Structures are given as C-alpha cells and as structure tokens.
C-alpha cells in the first residue's frame, strides 16, 4: 500500500512538473466548455420556443444539458487518455530509470497500481473542470444531482478502463509517441465498435457491441446505475492491469 502511494506521488509530481497536465486541462476546459455552451444554448432556445407556443417550460435540464454534456466528455476522454498514459512506462524504459524501479524492493504490482492510480487522479482532476460547468446549472436551475453523480461515476469507470489499456500499451515500447498512437487507436476502435454494430445482428456484432465502451456508458449518462455495466468497466480495468503485469514480467526475461 505504502509503496503504491510512493510511486503514485512521484508520477503525479512528474505530470505537474511538465506542461502535460496543464496543457491537457486547458485543452479539456476549452472543448468541454464549448460543448456545455452549445448544449445550454440549445436548451434555452428550445425552452423559449415551447414557452412561446404556450406549453410552459416542461423541459428537463438533466435530459437536455447534463446528458449530452456527459456523452461529449466521454468522447473527449478518448483523446485525453493516450496523452496521459503514453509516458508511464515507455519513458522509464527509454531513460533507463526502469532499472531503478525494477531493482527496488517493491512488487511489480505496486509499481503498476501506483502509476495507474496517478493517471486516474490526473484524469479526475481534468474531469473536475467540467464539474465547474455543471455547477453553474445549480445557480440558475434545479437539476437533479443524483444522475449527475452517476454520470461522473461512469466517466471515472470508463476512464479507469481506458487508462488501464493505455498503461499496458506503454509497457510494450520505449517510444512514447508509439505508445500514445497505439493507445489512441485502441480507444478509437473500442469507440467505433458501436457504429459497426448498429447495422449488424451476428454474434460477432454482439461481441463487438459488448466490447464498445460507449454502449456501456450510455446508461450512466442517463443516470441509471446498472451493476452490469459497472462490472464491464471493472473487468476491463482488471484485465488491462493484468496484461501490464504479464508484460513487465516478460520484459524481465527479455530485457
């Protein structure tokens, strides 16, 4: 436990010592802010229209603003995650510092968990920026806070799962750029699986649809907490970290 935290703190320190963390935050703040603005604008115009037609104001903030914003954020996440995980192991392998970690009295699992946790914490910090947007809604309206919480839980689970995959990919190369590109490709693939499957009904299509990260996020965005989907994300996290451990082990044999 203690070792995980030691590794995690070192990773966080590296993230925040370089422009990466701030760059990602700024990038995210701009894009997420833009989507929030668009969603709110649509909501307001539609609301005014229906009011003028004499139907009162029956539109739901959660449905018209929170849900599309959460869906957008989950897609932006696909772009952020490769940037967060690409350096985790690739850079240690390139610079040789992996020799320090691997010859210190800590377990591989502690190194992996520490790094993954640091990535998750950075991702959470980035998501927190969008929470500021959502908080604005509470100033002007009365959105239901429970679906929002479930939505953020979904974002964290999805982030954790993709970060685990990215962590694994980062162990397979000593080149950050390759690690980042491959992780981006993997994220994209898991995302587009959902499109392919929209027109297919074969078993393969069902498998691909099951693997798609987006399929599993939708319920969270709607504010529905379904253990089936949470379990999907948790198993991807477990599987990704397990692969990372195997990869580290084989690195030792080949080194």
């Amino acid at each position, binding site marked *: 436990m203690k*070792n995980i935290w*030691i*590794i995690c703190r070192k990773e966080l320190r590296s993230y925040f010592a*370089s422009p990466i963390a701030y760059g990602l935050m700024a990038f995210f703040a701009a894009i997420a802010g833009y989507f929030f603005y668009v969603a709110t604008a649509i909501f307001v115009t539609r609301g005014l229209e229906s009011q003028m037609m004499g139907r009162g104001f029956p539109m739901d903030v959660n449905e018209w603003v929170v849900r599309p914003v959460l869906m957008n954020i989950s897609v932006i996440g696909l772009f952020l995650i490769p940037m967060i995980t690409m350096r985790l192991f690739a850079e240690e392998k390139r*610079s*040789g510092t992996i*020799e*320090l*970690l691997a010859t210190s009295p800590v377990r591989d699992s502690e190194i992996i968990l520490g790094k993954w946790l640091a990535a998750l914490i950075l991702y959470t910090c980035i998501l927190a920026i969008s929470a500021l947007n959502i908080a604005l809604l509470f100033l002007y309206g009365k959105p239901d806070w429970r679906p929002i919480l479930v939505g953020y839980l979904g974002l964290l689970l999805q982030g954790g799962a993709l970060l685990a995959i990215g962590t694994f990919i980062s162990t397979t190369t000593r080149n950050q750029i390759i690690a980042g590109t491959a992780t981006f490709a993997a994220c994209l693939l898991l995302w587009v699986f959902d499109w392919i499957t929209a027109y297919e009904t074969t078993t393969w299509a069902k498998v691909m649809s099951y693997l798609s990260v987006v399929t599993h996020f939708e319920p969270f965005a709607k504010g529905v907490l379904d253990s089936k989907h949470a379990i999907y994300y948790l198993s991807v996290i477990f599987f990704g970290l397990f692969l990372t451990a195997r990869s580290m082990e084989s690195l030792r044999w080949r080194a």
Partner: protein
Amino acid sequence: MIKVESLTKRYARTVAVDGISFEVEKGRIVGFLGPNGAGKTTTMRVLTCFMPPTSGTARVAGFDVLQQPLEVKKRIGYLPESPPLYPEMEVVEYLRFVGRLKGIPKSAVDRRVDEVCERCAITDVRTRLLSKLSRGYRQRVGLAQAIIHNPDVLILDEPTAGLDPKQINETRRLIKSLAGDHTIILSTHILPEVEQTCEQVIIIDKGKLVATDTVENLTHRLRGSETVAVEVAPRDGALETAEVQRRLEQVPGVSRVIFKETRDNRHRFEVESLEGRSVRGALARSVVEAGWDLVELHATALSLEQIFLQLTASEDGGAAGGKP
C-alpha cells in the same frame, strides 16, 4: 556475501553469460573486468534481480535471486551503466523518493538524504534539477541513490565510464571510502582501474570466466612477460616488412611479433617476450646489426586483450581454471 554458481543467461540470439561461478566475501571490493560485450552488465542485472538467470543460481546474503527477490533487493544498491535519474526532479527530491522506495521510513529519510549528500559531495547541488547536472555530478547522485538505504552489497556498472580524469579520481576515492561498510562489485573494461581500486578481480570474456584472483597475484602473474613497441626504418632504399618481421622473430626470448603498420617506409611492430625475459636490449642490437635504423623502442602496458590471451593460454582454455 555473493555466491554465483554456473550462471547462464541467454538472450534470443546470444549467450551473454555462460556458466560462470564465483564467490565474493563480505567487505571486499571486487573488480569485474572484461571487454565490451563480455557479459558484465548482464551478470549484474541478474544479481540485482532485474532479470532472472536462464540457468544456474545466484545468492546474495544467503537469499536466492529467483526465490526471494525482495530480500535480495533490500540488501543491494545498484548503479546501472547510466545513472537512473528523473530529469524533472531536484536532487533532494529524487533521493527522498529513492529512499522511500528502498524502504526507509518517512521520519528517517530526510536525515539519511543529508548524510548521503555529504558523503557523495553533492550538498552544493541539493536543489538543482537533475537535468541540469554535469556528468560528474550525475554519477555522484547515482552513487548516492545506490547507498541511500545502506545496503550490504553495492553493484556499480562501469562507475567511471565517460568521466574526465579528475572526476574519475574523485569517484574512485569515493568508492574506496565506501568499502568499509559495503561489499562492492564494480565492473570496468580498464585494467588500471582494478589495480587501483579493487582487492579481488573477476575476469570474464565472451560470457566465460577467465580467472578470479586477488589483484596482487594477478599483476604478479602478468608481470612475467613484457610487450615492446618497435619501429624500424631502412638506412637507405626500401625494406620489406616480412624481412624485418623474420629478423625480430629470431631474437632470443621473443614469443610473438605482431605487425602493426607501415608509414613513410617505417615499419611498426609489437613484440611480446617469453615469460621472465627482457628483450629490449637484444631487439635493439639485432635491428642495428642488420643495418637498419631503430626509430623507436619502448615497453607498452599490457592491453586487456593481451591479458586475456595470456590468461587463456596459460590456463588451458581458461574457463575451468577460475576457482579463487
């Protein structure tokens, strides 16, 4: 303290370490000598549990590197070929991180960092970024991280490679000063380094053990013969290289004549004597008597290759003759 038995490490295509065995007693400074590609780094990586051996065993302080890697790692300080530094960290911050990683409790780590900074003479760069350090300082911070948890065994991979002569001297002195408290293995491909720093030497070549001995015994054994550089020029006209070579080979006491180069009609050779013979006088006489000019004649230090040639020749294949 360290016991290695028929250790073999095979990579995909090469056998980097081939069945070597040796022992190191507590408190010794041992030089691990061999040319590039001999398998020094590989052996050290097995000892530090960075990679497992293909076969054979290695034990550190009684713990097997495969069975109890965590126990071994607690007792080893390791300085890899290039110091494992994080460029974005400050010196003190880095040492604190390594200290915590090696299991020093939070309450003790600051004091320990101060101690190793003092010991490795890096106190003046405590708050400098690691990326901004000169080579000599990087090496010293590398040493500081290796000793921070006061390990029983220190493993240093070519600690003086790439340093300038002044830094080399400082580093050697520092390593020597650490000897009292730690068992030290350092690798090098430079013979004088072993002579100056170490008590015991382990020589490997192409993954095989060539010899292990005390430094005294080894230098004594090697002093037996001498190597001489000879440069000969004709007094006038031309001169055949082969003719000179034949004449030098006939000088009594000469075991081998190696042709080096011919430039401006000057022929350069390297001559090795038989054991216990000094041949410089006889060589000079022979050249002059042949009516040639002796342009240069001096004894050269033994190169590492020659040592390997001698050791492998005198020990009948070498690898088997390595018991201390």
